[in-house]
């Protein structure tokens, strides 16, 4: 985490003086962006840097779904299965991905390329079904478009 400290110092200046505790979420996001996940050592270092009690960081990591404490596949396919997506083919899309990749939601392919998850509403209901790949939204994901996406990601 040490190499991120200058960024964190700059971030700190943007917040009110007594608001250091706010740094927990943005710093964790940055750590995860950098490393791919939040390591146990990051927790102790971040707690000491801000400073906040370590338990606060542990609670945050377990509460918010976007944080992870272990690495996952190179491409994280997060398929929405909430209302509008389910009404426009999400269940079929997820089943298609399961068949195509040979994994169930929560699993990673053996080659470490793809991790499949189901998620709740992503706020893109007008272009359902939607699959979020790492940070990006992929919309209107019919099976042919899913196939094209996987091909592209496999390159």
């Amino acid at each position, binding site marked *: 985490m040490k190499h991120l400290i200058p960024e964190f110092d700059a971030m700190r200046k*943007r*917040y*009110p003086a*007594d*608001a250091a*505790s*706010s*740094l*927990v*979420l*943005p710093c*964790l*996001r940055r750590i995860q962006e950098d490393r791919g996940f939040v390591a146990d050592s990051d927790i102790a270092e971040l707690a000491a840097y*801000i400073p*906040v009690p370590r338990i*606060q960081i542990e*609670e*945050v990591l377990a*509460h*918010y*779904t*976007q*944080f992870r404490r272990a690495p996952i596949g190179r491409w994280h396919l997060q398929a929405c*299965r*909430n*209302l*509008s997506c*389910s*009404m*426009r*083919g999400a*269940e*079929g899309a997820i089943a298609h991905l399961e068949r195509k990749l040979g994994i169930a939601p929560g699993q990673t392919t053996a080659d470490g390329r793809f991790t499949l998850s189901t*998620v*709740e*509403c*992503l*706020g*893109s*209901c*007008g*272009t*359902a079904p939607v699959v*979020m790949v790492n*940070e*990006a*939204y992929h919309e209107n994901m019919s099976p042919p478009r899913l196939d094209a996406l996987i091909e592209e990601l496999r390159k």
Partner: protein
Amino acid sequence: MTGRKLIMTFPVTATSHLLADYKARGGYGTLERALREMRPEQITKEVTASGILGHGGAAFPTGRKWGVIKPNDGQPHYLCANADEGEPGTFKDRWILENAPHLLLESMLISAYALQVRHSFVYIRGEFDLPYRRLAAAVEEAYAAGLFGERILGTDFACDIVIYRGAGSYVCGEASALITSIEGKKGYPRNRPPRLTVRGLYQRPTVINNVETLSNIAGIVAHGAEAFRTVGTAKSPGTQLVSISGHVQRPGVYEVEYGYPLAKFIYEDCGGPLGGGKIKCVIPGGISTKVLTAAEIETVTYDHAALAAAGSQVGSGGMVVIAEGTCMVRLLQVLLRFYHHESCGQCTPCREGMGWMHRIIDRIVAGEGRMEDIDQLIRISKANDGTTICGMGDAAGYATVGIIAKYRDEFEYFIEHKRSRLNGRLEVVQ
């Protein structure tokens, strides 16, 4: 056309979200006039006179919320734009963040000036990546142009803004949980009292407004409360950004003037139901709002009073069209799974109740339902009404009671025959 426009007043192009284009449309002119010619209390007065209601779902009068902030009380005030937009079916704030970020920023600056706010925040859900990047770029442009920071436009007014990204928690769209999240903690809502306008972020007076609500402020200050009130209806002045999805031909974000006929909107402006069939029902604004049947939407105008009279609400503007042939039992199952997943777990009725309802409906869908399950779902819903720390428990209850009230026969069929009367369909038959 869905009535007059206040927000979606320009064609979306490759550059329309940038500062140069916004300025060419007259952007930041209102901020300049407000800082130079108006006192903070005049702005609050104008907002109150406009009668604008919150666009996040609760429809609380914005001026009344602002009015609780005491000027010159010697403590910091905070302003947060709620861009968490997690309500299923709702994606209209995203339109503003992607296409009109400067409208939000200018409005926030005017609001911050009115409320004596030095530090403002936009809390944006963690999954919104493109909206975040558009907004962040707009913030950078604004800082570079001297529109944030010290001595804005050469006046004594100073204001900074931080875009705070969430990390996957629907409950953080609730105002007090949003604040607790900005404080770097779990998204736990808080009991009231105290109101957030008395003790909010870091225990200071805080105003939290929805992105769309705030985005209206520039226009209200520019043209005045009276002009604003000429749009919409007496009790619902202005417009609503409606995100419509589900079994509809032309899903998307539309700006609808309050008072516009709902049936016209759905059938004409949005192309009517997908697949050329019939509409079964419509969720008007977020999944906790009571469903309106096809017959009910025929006679209703899109405004707060009319929807309330019809037993529903404007809510978050997240409208979902449900076609004939959709299994309402499976539909409720999706909703209850969602509420169970998102419950923060603090208070007893919601923590235990959401899981309980989800397990019951899973059992029904698996063909293991019992007749008493239907009344059990209603009992749990009622036990979450007005008993919880935040509105999420109530919301799940309203969704459940609303659907069962109108489609009880489907639930009874499912339990008796151990299968859906409609083949468990959620997709439309094409």
